[in-house]
Every structure is written in C-alpha cells, then in structure tokens.
C-alpha cells in the first residue's frame, strides 16, 4: 500500500515536471532574437526575397500566432510528430533515429563500463593507502582531462602517427551499413578509439567519487561498531561498499539519461555521426523543431532514468523506502 502511494506521488511529480520542461523547450528557442527562416536562407549564401521567406514561414507554421503554434505543438506531439527540421530539411524523428544509435553505441558501453571499473578501482583505492597513493594522481589527471583533448591525442598518436586504428567516421568510407562481416569488423575498428576516449576519461571521476565515499563510510559509526565486534575486513568492506555506491547510482542514472544528448566533442574529433553536433547546430541556427524534438527526448530519458532510480532506491536503500512510506 505504501509503495503504491509512493509510486502515485512520483508519477504525478514527473508528469508536472514533464509538461513544464517541454513547455520551456518550446518557448526558449522562440525567445532567442532573430528569424530562423532568414538564417536558413542566408546559410546557403543567398539573400532571400520576402516572397520566399513568407513561403517558408507558412511551410513551418511560423506565421501563426504563438498560442496557436503552442497548441499545434502539443497536438502534433501526441500524434508522435516531432516536427520538421529547418536546418536539415528532414523530419526530426528521422534525424534522431539515424543519429542516436551511434551515440548509444559509444556512450552506453563507455558509461556503464567506466562506472563499473571506476567504482571498483575507487573502492580499492579507498581501502588501500598504498595503492591510493599511486592511483589517485592518475585519477585526478584523467578526471580533469577534457574529452576532446584526450580524443585529439588518441587521433594523433594512435590514428595518425602509429596508424593502428581508423579515427574518422563510424565505418570505412567505402561501406554502407549492413549486417555483413566486413561492415561489423569495420564498425568495431572505428568504434575503439572514440569509445576509449570517453571510457578512460570517465573512469577518473567515478573512481574519485567512489574512493571518497568509501573513506567516508569506513569512518562511519556502523563500521567502527562492526570493527569493535571483530567482524572480518571483508564484511566491513561489503557494508561500506553498499552505502558508498548509492550516490554513484544516482550519478549513473543521470549520465545515462543525458546520453541521448550525444557526445559533441567525441563526435567532432572522430567525425563520428551522432546527435550531439546536430543539436549544437540546431541551437546555433535556431532550428526550433529539431531543438524541441531533441530536448524532448533528453527530457524523457532523464526523467525516465530518474524515475527508474527512484524505484531502484526504494529497493536498495531502506531509508528511502521508509521515509516515503511513513511520511
């Protein structure tokens, strides 16, 4: 019963957040100064006649009053229509569909693996002073390293100078995506460098977070108590780890939620197809519809990730469950 109330409350809160966030996504690009149609026409070097501008305003429904545009937006949204990108001249859903999988292919393994490896390394560092002394500087170095910088080093050293791995695109230029062995091999070899560029940098921050949490937890009263009881080190670590991992789970969920916004730096440096650069250009060119669509996906996935974490928390953290069911 208590859990059900907890769920209902969560769903309502998320519903309100969703409507509010999506409305803001719709409104904010439109508050930017400038005319997107003008930008669209000028982008190709042309100067537009007023007739052409009127034509495109009508095509994109920008000649209607704001309230009507807003209404259309919601109506279309519930019909699953995300609109039509002005920058790329294609349905937003199709742009996202073709770009997003590449980001996920890189980011999902990078985030999940770096989380696992980072937590693991961090936990060991938190317990073992000697190991800590050697690894912490490395973790700090990794965590403070900008993604693009490390990516550029990888491109230059591994790709250009050593020539070990391809560093441009998601697969060889003379292939088209297919389920053939050639394509998969090509895809994997192109995947390694961008993956490593994210994975290695991410390890650092996870490890630091975990290490600090473990140190904190090992000093906590319950561990002291266990120690006084003469519990084995293994048992103490186990309990400390279970408490230390909680904030890391939240961090993971947020990272996974933000995953659909793409990895701009990686995409640029490795010339990897993905959604990040498309969104960036959409913002620069006032492509209302692509911005709306892309942020809608981001909002949904962040909310979904948070929602999931809220539920998971109710299971993995008895304190949370207690606070909600009783309060």
């Amino acid at each position: 019963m208590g859990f059900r109330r907890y769920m209902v409350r969560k769903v309502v809160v998320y519903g309100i957040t969703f409507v509010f966030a999506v409305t803001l996504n719709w409104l904010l690009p439109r508050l930017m100064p400038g005319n997107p149609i003008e930008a669209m026409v000028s982008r190709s070097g042309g100067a537009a006649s007023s007739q052409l501008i009127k034509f495109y305003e009508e095509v994109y429904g920008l000649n209607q009053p704001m309230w009507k545009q807003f209404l259309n937006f919601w109506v279309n949204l519930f019909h699953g229509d995300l609109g039509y990108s002005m920058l790329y001249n294609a349905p937003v859903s199709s742009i996202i569909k073709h770009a997003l999988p590449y980001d996920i292919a890189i980011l999902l393994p990078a985030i999940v693996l770096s989380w696992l490896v980072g937590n693991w390394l961090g936990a060991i560092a938190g317990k073992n002073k000697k190991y800590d002394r050697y690894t912490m500087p490395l973790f700090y170095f990794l965590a403070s390293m900008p993604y693009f910088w490390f990516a550029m080093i990888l491109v230059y050293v591994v790709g250009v100078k050593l020539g070990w791995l391809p560093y441009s695109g998601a697969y060889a230029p003379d292939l088209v995506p297919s389920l053939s062995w050639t394509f998969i091999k090509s895809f994997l070899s192109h995947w390694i460098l961008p993956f490593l560029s994210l994975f290695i940098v991410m390890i650092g921050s996870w490890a630091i977070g975990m290490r600090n949490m473990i140190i904190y937890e090992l000093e906590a009263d319950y561990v002291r108590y266990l120690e006084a009881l003469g519990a084995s080190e293994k048992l103490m670590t186990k309990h400390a780890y279970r408490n230390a991992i909680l904030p890391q789970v939240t961090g993971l969920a947020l990272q996974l939620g933000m995953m659909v916004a793409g990895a701009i730096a990686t995409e640029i440096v490795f010339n990897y197809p993905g959604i990040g650069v498309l969104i960036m250009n959409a913002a620069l060119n006032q492509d209302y519809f692509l911005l709306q669509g892309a942020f809608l996906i981001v909002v949904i996935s962040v909310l979904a990730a948070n929602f999931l974490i809220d539920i998971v928390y109710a299971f993995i953290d008895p304190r949370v469950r207690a606070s909600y069911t009783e309060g």
Partner: protein
Amino acid sequence: MKRYLAVALVAVVLGSLFGLASVSAASEFPRNETLYTANSAPPTNANPFQGGNIIGLDGLIFEPLFMLNFMTGQLKPWLAESGKWVEPNVFEVVLRPGLTWQDGKPLTAEDVKFSFEYYQEIGLRNWSKLGLKEIKVVNNRTVDFIFSGTPNYQLWKLQLFYGWGQGVLIIPEHIFKNIDPKEIPKMTFLGDEQKYLVGSGPYKLYEVVQGQKSILIRNDNWWGIKYFGKPAPKYIIQLYVKDNAQAANMFIKGDLDVGTYYIDIVKAKEENPYLVSWLDKPPYFPPVAPVLLYFNTKKPPMDNPQFRRAIAMAINPKQIITNGPIGGMPSEIPFGTGLLSKWADKIDLQGLIKEYGWQYGNVEEANKILDQLGMKRDSNGWRTYNGKEIVLHLVTCAGCSDWISTAEIIQNQLKAIGIKVVIDKYDWGAMMDKYHKGDFDLGLHWAGTFQPTAYAVYNALLSKDGVANFGNFTDPQAQQILDEFAKTTDPNKEAQYIKQLSEIWLKEVPAVPVYMATLFYEANTKYWTGWPNAQNPYGVPIFWAKYGTWGTALALLGVKPAGSSTTSTAQTAATSTSSPTSTTSTSSGKSICGPAAIVGLAVIPLLLRRRRK
C-alpha cells in the same frame, strides 16, 4: 558475481552494436572508379525543388536548361540547345534533340512547361511577378514563354538555371503529376520517396545513408554523352565531414578527392603533393565575390556620402588580406572575379575608378574630408559629430572568424582617422535581423555580390527592395537606370548601364568592398585529374545546396581518371586493391588490442588484492 558482471558487459557491448545494424547489402566501391567528396552538412534531404543537401542533386541528377559558370559568368546551353527572344515578349527555348529521362522516356517541351508551372504551384516561384503570361508548347522540342508587356529581360536570364528563389530544374511530368505540389516542401525524397527521383542527368541517386553519406552512380544512358562525353567517375560518394582538421587529415591521406574546407593548403601540399587548388600562390582558393562593408545610409552621419567616402579611403584591403582572412584584392566596385573578367574592359573600369573612385588606404585625404565636414577631434583624438563623439557599431556574425578578424582590422584602420568603432557580434539570424531593421551603423555581408550577373548585383544592392540592400540605400537615378537595364538585351547597352551604375556606386559609396572572399576548394589528383583552376576555369565546385548548376556540376563532369595510359591504371588498380586489405588487416588486429587493454586495466586491482591477502 564477477562472472555475471563480465556477461553483462559483453551483453551491453554487443547489444549496443547490433542495435545499429540496419539491413541492406554491403557494397564495394572501387577506389579508382569512385570520386569522394564531403560536405559539412549531413545528407538528410534529396528534395530537388528546395535543393536538398546532396551534392549533385541539382545539376547531376536533375538538370537546368542552362548551366552557369560562376567563375566566368557564362551561360552554357544544357538541356536547351538555344534560348532567345524571338519577339520582344516571347522567349523561345529549343531543346536538344534526343533528350531522355533516366527511366528511358523522352524529355519533351511538355516537361519544361510542366516544371515551370509546378514550381509556381508549390509556391516557390511567382512567374506572374515577372510578367509571364503563358507557357506554350510549340512542338516536342520548342517552348515559348510569352510575357505581357516588356519583360524584365535581366531577371528572366536568372531563371534559366537554378538557385535560391530563382530558376527551375526540369522534372519529369509523368512522375510528378501524381504528387500534390503542396506535399513537396516537406518531402525528403529518401527512403520510399527515392523512387520519384527520376532525373535526366549523368548520375542517379544510388543510396543515401541518412545523415552520413550519399552515393551517386553514373547513368550510362545519359543523353549528354554524345555532347559532353561520358563522365569519368562511376560513383560519387559524398561523406559527412564536420571538422576542417578532419578534412585536412583525409585530404593528406588521399581519402577525399574534392571538398570545400578551410585547410592549410601549403602544409597539406607538403605532405600530399597530389593536392591542388585554384591558384598555386596565395590566396590559393578561388576568390569569388567581395565582402562589403555596409553603411546604414539612413542614419547620420552615414547618410552623408562624403563621410562614407572618407571611411572607404581609410580602409586598406591589402592589410586585411595579409593579416586577416584568406582573400584576394577587391575592386572598388562590388563585382566578383567572374563579373570583373567579363566586364572590366568593356566598361573601362580603371578609368572609372581613377575618375570617381576613392583610392583605398588614403588616410591623409580621408582626414581632410572629415575636417571639411567639421568633425573635429575631441581631447581623446576621436572625431565628433554635432558635439558628440562618433561611435560606430560594426555588426558581424559571432561564428564568422574571417569577418571578425576583418572587423578588427577595420576598427584599427578607422582609428587612424579618429573614428571609434565598436564590434557587435550576433548569431547569424540575429545579425540578419539587425540588418533588416536598420539597427546598425556598419555591417559586413556578401549576399549582394555573390550573384551571377552584373544586373543581379546592382539590383540586389541599389534597388529599393534589393535583397541585399541592407544599408537601405536609395537613389532615384540608380533606380531609373536599373529599370532601363531590365528592359535591354543588347550587350552594348548593358555595358553602358553597368558603367553608369558603377559611377553612382563610386560616387555615392553605398558600401565598400573590403576583400575578395574565397570559396574554399581543394582537390586531390591521385585518382582524378583535370580539376578546374585559374588557368582552366571550366567550372567551380560550390558545395552548398542549390549551387549545383553554378559550376559544381561542370567541375565534377570535367575530371578525368589519373593517368589514362595502361601503366598508371595498373598502378591505381594496385593501390585500390591494397588499401582495403590493409585497413581490414589492421582492424582485425587492433580490435583485439582495444578490449585487451580494458581487460588489462581491470586485472591490475585484482592482482593487487590477491597479493594483499
């Protein structure tokens, strides 16, 4: 626990990989038969009416009546054999014999009529505004465009090829009569809609991997083979390359054959001697059209031509192109290289400039004019107007580093005559907004000069509702000359009008050309040779949507395979076979290396822990 983790990891990795695979046959494109190009915009749209973002869609797949060579200003008859005014209000187009669509059906005069009308039905063109009354099919190969009254001959000339808000590509009636024109603006012509892309040109759209690459395949039954020869590349693959540094690497490695990227061409040439560009000396890239420094001519003190003249005098383009963006020396009139080569002699440009021009970099004279205007310097050395310090806001685009460095140099140059300039950077859309609302003092742009004809340039810059008249310049005399200019087809009269308009330009200084902007262009002669250059300007690759018929198609149709003799073909064949094998061998070798590194990294703590116990 660890075992489960490992399984989960593998599942995550594999899952994320196979989520990608969309099913279609893998294909091989032999390197020596494939021309690789790239664009910084992803291919997402193949709409021939609005010009998608697939290079060659206009010009190579769908064709115009005439092709424009932007570098020489010449119109080349293409689908049309001829086009002329048979009566003052009747323009007659005669098509070449034997034109066919890619599906084998003949291309006739009916298709031409249908195309012009279809563009109007979509809402993209308004022919009645040009006075076009009727399009009449005379016979299979002849179409008459009948106008009411005296047509604007000069504007009509721009409709014979294709571009922004101008001209048409000829489309097949038998395909498009079944498509509602109102649906067209939001069609991408990809996926299921690709079947409608039946053009008449030398290439067909083979496949588009949305957002990543498009592949054109040669149409071996092209009608034009007997006129223009068979195009050399069997495939033209357009990649999506965002970053200049990436493009530079790809050019150096020979992965790209032609493109428009800002790369250090001198350095790239050192590493890859096969690279060529338009010129073999600075600025290397083809200088096409001048960037103008606009004045807001309705706002004091910029409303005074003498003041504008003084500023023009203080500007030194030589300094701009040495310290600022890559560019060439501009002329004082707003013409690009193509138009200058076409008209400079006919209008005695040098004489005109000598008599009416302002002479760049003449600070002394500029100071004298400002003194005469009573713009005294204040205690800080800045000039004043009506007792107030003059502060001019120069509006530029925030992302355009070339314009920003130009603006900074201009700021410095105007300091020498005591004019304070503040540089305001805006996003492109916001900047255009400022221009249209007249909310600026000085501004940079080149939309008015990147035009195919002299009339188009002056019409854009000087007429009351000119598309690039950002400074809101009005002059009744210029308007009158433009109106008369529109009504002539006589080249001598044209020269005379251009001369008169240039004189007004030089006297009134509505804007100042500050440097000749270049198109970035680099090509690789390892696989394809005969690229257009300054000596042989048979075309120019302009890799923007809607400029395919301005010289891009001509350039891509003119390339030849590198070394047509037998020995060198064997050589290219050898390299082309060796390159795929080498890439596959490295990839298979290294794909073990990467995971191995990860495993290695993970093992370290394990080992450490074991030892501790």
